[in-house]
């Protein structure tokens, strides 16, 4: 099975490099193939909401850049992990620049999911969507919103497991490693 890690590595002060390393090592040990897309290496223009990917070139962004690289990798993954600085309880702008290009991977039509209107998926649903955030200063309210955002994304993506971790400078390396291991145990426990 394939895991995609989308990593906003643009803020050196965010100590997510070791988290990415632990994540990759643990997933590979469990038999996953792991693909990491670092935002610093992606050339992506922001989504302009043109819906070309729905009504002109269905399934493909009208902009020929790494937006397509991201969408293709996402379509072929069973696990999606976002490593990102937390901006006001959401993804960082650099993360969001890639993430907004998930739109080609859903159909323009409508379905009801848990009583809400959503879009059907163009590709098989992910098994898991995990968010791992970084806050330079602990902010419980923003962390709560970040977790709620993950739940919303999970509902939109019809995933089996949505979960969130938020790290701050108060978490030492051992604590981060333990938390990542515990998170991945939930993935491994999926039926």
């Amino acid at each position, binding site marked *: 099975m394939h895991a995609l890690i989308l990593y906003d590595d643009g803020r050196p002060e965010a100590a997510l490099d070791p988290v990415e390393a632990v994540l990759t090592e643990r997933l590979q040990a469990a038999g996953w193939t792991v693909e990491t897309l670092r935002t610093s290496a992606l050339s992506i223009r922001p989504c302009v909401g043109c819906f070309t990917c729905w009504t002109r070139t*269905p*399934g493909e962004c009208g902009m020929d850049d790494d937006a397509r690289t991201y969408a293709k990798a996402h*379509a072929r993954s069973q696990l999606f992990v976002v490593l990102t600085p937390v901006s*006001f309880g959401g*993804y960082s702008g650099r993360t*969001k620049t890639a993430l907004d290009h998930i739109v080609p991977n859903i159909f323009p039509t409508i379905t009801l999911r848990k009583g809400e*209107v959503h879009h059907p998926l*163009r*590709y098989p649903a992910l098994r898991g969507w995990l968010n791992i955030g970084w806050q330079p200063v602990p902010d419980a*309210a923003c962390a709560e919103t970040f977790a709620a955002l993950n739940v919303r994304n999970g509902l939109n993506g019809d995933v089996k497991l949505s979960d969130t971790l938020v790290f701050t400078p108060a978490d030492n390396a051992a604590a981060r490693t333990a938390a990542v291991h515990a998170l991945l145990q939930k993935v491994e426990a999926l039926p």
Partner: protein
Amino acid sequence: MSTRTFLALVGSPRAHATSQVFARYFADQLAARGWQTEVLSLAGAIRKPEGWPALAERFRDADTVGLCTPLYVDSLPAEATLALERLVDVAPTRPQGFFALVNCGFPEAAQNDTALAICRHFARQAGRTWLGGLALGGGGALAGQQVEKTRGMMPHLCAALEQAVAALDTGEAIPAATQALIRRPFCPPRVYALMADVGMFQDAAKHGALWRIFARPYAAG
């Protein structure tokens, strides 16, 4: 008493967006009440850096700022987020209020709640007073029309916006009842879903893509 100033920020990356309609509505209504108003695009300032200093200056000096934005993947569009990450460090020159209106293409206004929470956290971190959040479902039904022209179909929308303007004009937060009023769905979800499906199929047909609408170009193998 000096003229009060209002800055409407547009969070949509689209030139002719529903969010632009709402931003213009707030600006026009407050201008009619004597405010000095301006509408600026966050995406525009991100794309054209020469526009950034003016936007940051207006943001610094305004008495009230309103962000009107669409919902993209359960939160704010990328360029709006990038802009807020820069604006958060722009200290206000006077006590400033901040509110947000988030609209989505889904009929359920509640789908905007995470984005509104993000706006609320931004206001707090930027040192602005949170004046409330307006969550609108089914925003696509406006189809770029002026707010007044939707009165027949969405009377609650017009009423809520009028109440919001009245509150902002007196320097008050948008009342909770107003925030609840705008959340009312204007039609049943299934009806809205049908309308949305028909519109999308028509658009795909217009571009010769109707028979490819369910294509899977990235399917493995």
